């Protein structure tokens, strides 16, 4: 006898992991379409403009989650931690929000920049007080 093809319950018997794969929420994009790739500790914040209208087509639930978190200054790593999304996905979604003007990059650390002695002292004092 022929096996019944397309048995609708069949695939559910195995554990396929998350229903939505990580890069589905970016519509398959693994890199931002425009702009620079954000570093893990670049700081972003919501501008209060752009995507605040009620048009649901403006973004995915993930876009809106990130936008809500950006009410206060956060790093890219914080956003990945808080949303549980992979860093690569957060970068793509953030780039969308930045392009819309809803989010802006507050601070980007240049490579190889040694902070001033006052900042280093601030870090040392903070560590010693832990």
């Amino acid at each position: 006898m022929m096996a019944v093809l397309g048995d609708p319950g069949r695939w559910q018997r195995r554990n396929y992991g998350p229903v939505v794969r990580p890069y589905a929420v970016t519509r398959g994009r693994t890199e931002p379409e425009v702009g620079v790739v954000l570093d893990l500790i670049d700081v972003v914040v919501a501008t209060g403009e752009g995507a605040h209208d009620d048009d649901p087509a403006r973004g995915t639930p993930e876009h809106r989650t990130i936008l809500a978190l950006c009410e206060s200054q956060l790093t890219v790593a914080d956003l990945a931690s808080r949303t549980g999304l992979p860093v690569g996905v957060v970068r793509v979604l953030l780039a969308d929000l930045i392009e819309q003007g809803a989010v802006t990059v507050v601070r980007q650390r240049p490579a190889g920049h040694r902070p001033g002695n006052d900042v280093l002292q601030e870090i040392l004092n903070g560590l010693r007080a832990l």
Partner: protein
Amino acid sequence: MASVPFDGTSSGTGGELAPFKIVIGGGFGAGKTTFVHAISEVRPLHTEEALSTASIGFDDLTDLGAKRTTTVALDYGRITLTERVVLFLFGLPGQERFSFMWDEFSYGALGAVVLADVRRLDDCFASVNYFEKLQVPFVVALNCFDGAPKYDPEEVSAALDLDPSVPTVLCDARDPSSVRDVLIALVENISGGSGGTESR
């Protein structure tokens, strides 16, 4: 709105968040995840996955006893020092086949910690070479595993042929105050200016 599980990120007071990145290198099983875990105020972003037979022959488990998982995602730690200054710790994936990720994590880093297991000292050579080449200030922290032989930091420093400006310290990656002392040694070394790589 969403609850805020940590302090010091509010933009309402006008203070700008000043994050600094410290990367944690070292061989597979040297204790990087434990090190980040010990001092972080948030749960690390790591995913310990069961070691599969696919890693046999790649991941050396000698002396690691019950280690059956490895870090496939990102070890991420966060330490709020003041209202604006936050340290971020990122553990570099130890296996060499993940070394393509090191550049990204190390970009713009304040400094680095190389965790070493004296029983498998050669495992940290790749990290030491990497940070020397990148001119990222680093310290070597000897993780004192139970039952491992004890060596003088000076002996290990000589064995690794380290520049005298690179501190070598003992630590217990499970102990928050020991981890803190390693970070203090690193930042003291950076502020001491040794190494001559100041950009201004």
